[in-house]
């Protein structure tokens, strides 16, 4: 099947360039440098229609940046994001707009992603109306319909976001994305801010919508437990790179990359026994100055010389991709 979204060797660098004053200062001998953040570094990922791909990784590893490139909020520095085989740039005018609307996003913070000064009806109904998806007269019913679909009382359409609880706001955000009939939804930490009990409601909602509407998800989270539950495939990111990618259950059951292994070990489990915590040592390095070679090597218990100099490629390891030199290593391969 052709992928609906194809992320092809995408990189994103944020560069803070020197302005006139800074360049002058540099000439005068000041120590100012243009700073480059490699937020996403050569990532490839193809998402099939109807698939749910989970993206996990620690804070700052570039998950959101990748998600934003997928919906077109950011342009990749290198590589391309294709929707049904075409980048947004290749499409023109109306076609481009249509294509972009097909890929929507649900944001992390349910409060800040809703304009506090608009009523729910306007929040959800504005885009469909502006884009002529529904005639002006029918917007009201359309909104009511959407609200019902996400499990909200249509009579709440005249309220403002602050009058809702966190879970309800998340639902409004989802209804808004659904309003423009998307095919792909990027969920950026959409349940992270919610209480456990509410989180379950929203996860259920996502799953139901997928079943009803045949949606495709790129599901971003730092919580491997959640990702595991909802995704077909899981991509693990570390410092801008995908380090492991494979079928969800497979990845959880037999993590290949040492980082994935550590993550899996920390999946919240409800035990009745006390347990001793043990963790990877060390701090997450800054993306401003990523370590050479394998980004994970300073914290990796198995690191050896090669890891410090050579970037491991993402290779097929028994039906899944992993980027670790250990896989080539005789000791492990055996």
């Amino acid at each position, binding site marked *: 099947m052709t992928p609906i979204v194809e992320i092809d060797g995408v990189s994103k660098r944020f560069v803070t360039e020197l302005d006139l004053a800074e360049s002058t200062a540099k000439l005068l001998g000041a120590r100012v440098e243009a700073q480059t953040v490699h937020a996403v570094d050569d990532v490839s990922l193809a998402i099939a229609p109807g698939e749910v791909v989970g993206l996990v990784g620690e804070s700052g590893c570039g998950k959101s940046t990748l998600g934003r490139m997928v919906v077109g909020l950011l342009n990749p520095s290198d590589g391309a994001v294709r929707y049904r085989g075409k980048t947004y740039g290749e499409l023109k005018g109306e076609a481009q707009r249509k294509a972009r609307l097909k890929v929507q996003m649900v944001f992390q913070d349910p409060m800040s992603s809703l304009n506090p000064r608009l009523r729910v009806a306007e929040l959800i109904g504005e885009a469909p109306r502006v884009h002529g998806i529904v005639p002006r007269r029918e917007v009201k019913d359309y909104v009511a319909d959407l609200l019902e679909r996400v499990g909200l009382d249509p009579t709440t359409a005249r309220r403002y976001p602050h009058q809702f609880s966190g879970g309800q706001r998340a639902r409004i955000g989802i209804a808004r994305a659904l309003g423009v009939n998307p095919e792909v939804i990027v969920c950026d930490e959409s349940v992270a801010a919610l209480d456990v009990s509410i989180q379950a409601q929203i996860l259920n909602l996502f799953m139901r919508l997928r079943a009803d509407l045949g949606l495709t998800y790129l599901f971003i989270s730092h919580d491997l437990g959640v990702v595991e539950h909802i995704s077909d495939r899981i991509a693990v990111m570390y410092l801008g790179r995908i380090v492991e990618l494979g079928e969800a259950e497979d990845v959880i059951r037999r993590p290949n990359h040492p980082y994935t292994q550590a993550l899996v070990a920390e999946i919240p489990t409800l035990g009745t026994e*006390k347990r001793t915590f043990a963790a990877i040592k060390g701090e*997450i390095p800054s993306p401003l100055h990523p370590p050479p070679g394998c980004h994970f090597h300073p914290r990796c218990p198995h690191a050896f010389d090669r890891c410090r100099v050579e970037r491991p490629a993402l290779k097929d390891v028994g039906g899944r991709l992993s980027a670790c030199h250990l896989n080539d290593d005789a000791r492990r391969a055996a």
Partner: protein
Amino acid sequence: MTLLTVENLQTHFFTRDGVAKAVDGVSFTLERGEILGLVGESGSGKSVTGFSILGLVDEPGRVVGGRIVFDGTDLVAEPSAIEGLRGKRIAMIFQDPMMTLNPVLRIDTQMVETVLAHEKVSRKAALARARETLTAVGISSPDERLKSYPHQFSGGMRQRVAIAIALLHEPDLIIADEPTTALDVTIQAQILSEVQRLAADRGMSLIWITHDLAVVSALADRIAVMYAGRIVETGPTAGVIGAPHHPYTRGLIASVPHGKRHGEPLSQIDGMTPALTRLPEGCKFRPRCPRADAACTVEPPLAELSPARTVRCVHPHLSEKAAA
């Protein structure tokens, strides 16, 4: 031996929208050396309970009733007694490591002042103690770190500094208010292992406030579950997690995705956490409770249903095993 007894604690906030009964009849006891996990949804009053014990409830809030007996002293009746205890025998760690350290003061200042607040020792001695404690929480090259400012630290390190500050006086009790929720998974594990080790080494009591059942289940000796300002269930960890009596506890445990079949619908607690100023009559969980009936319109007492297990419910799940 009982270190802390909280009895029917009531802390209310007098806001413009009405009285928010953030804590409304919380009771529990804590033994020396015990780790108590205090769990509940956001806004259920966990933090306020912690602040009440330390006497740090800010305007417009007030402790309006109940008793907090710490090592024989009633802190509600004698509010001035807390002054000598705070930071010395009872310490607290806050949720957001980015916010708990004063950004404009060096780490050494912030640690030394804590030592000097309760003990008359030389600055040098205080500094030595600070260095020692930093090492104890796993910070390498403490001398250099002491001269740094908080912004030069990562989140995990800051939280460790905060823990070190809490440990400076080897307190009897540490109240940890969600100290790991703002951290990444791998860092969280580091902190948890650190805390676990320290608590065990020094025989301190710990109140671990969190909304994450999984963490608590692995860490705490006993668990208290809060809902809307009340404790709805307490008991030893194994009991509460293994056989929850209260429908709310059950619901919480059930909604954790782990262990479910992939893609299977999660069981969920319907409805939303109620606003504190608009609580329903009787059992506060009633509107969301699948078992609710007319009997629930009367507030149930916190009853001891089985040894060391108390539950506030008219229709507790008694015989069943935890659903899973």
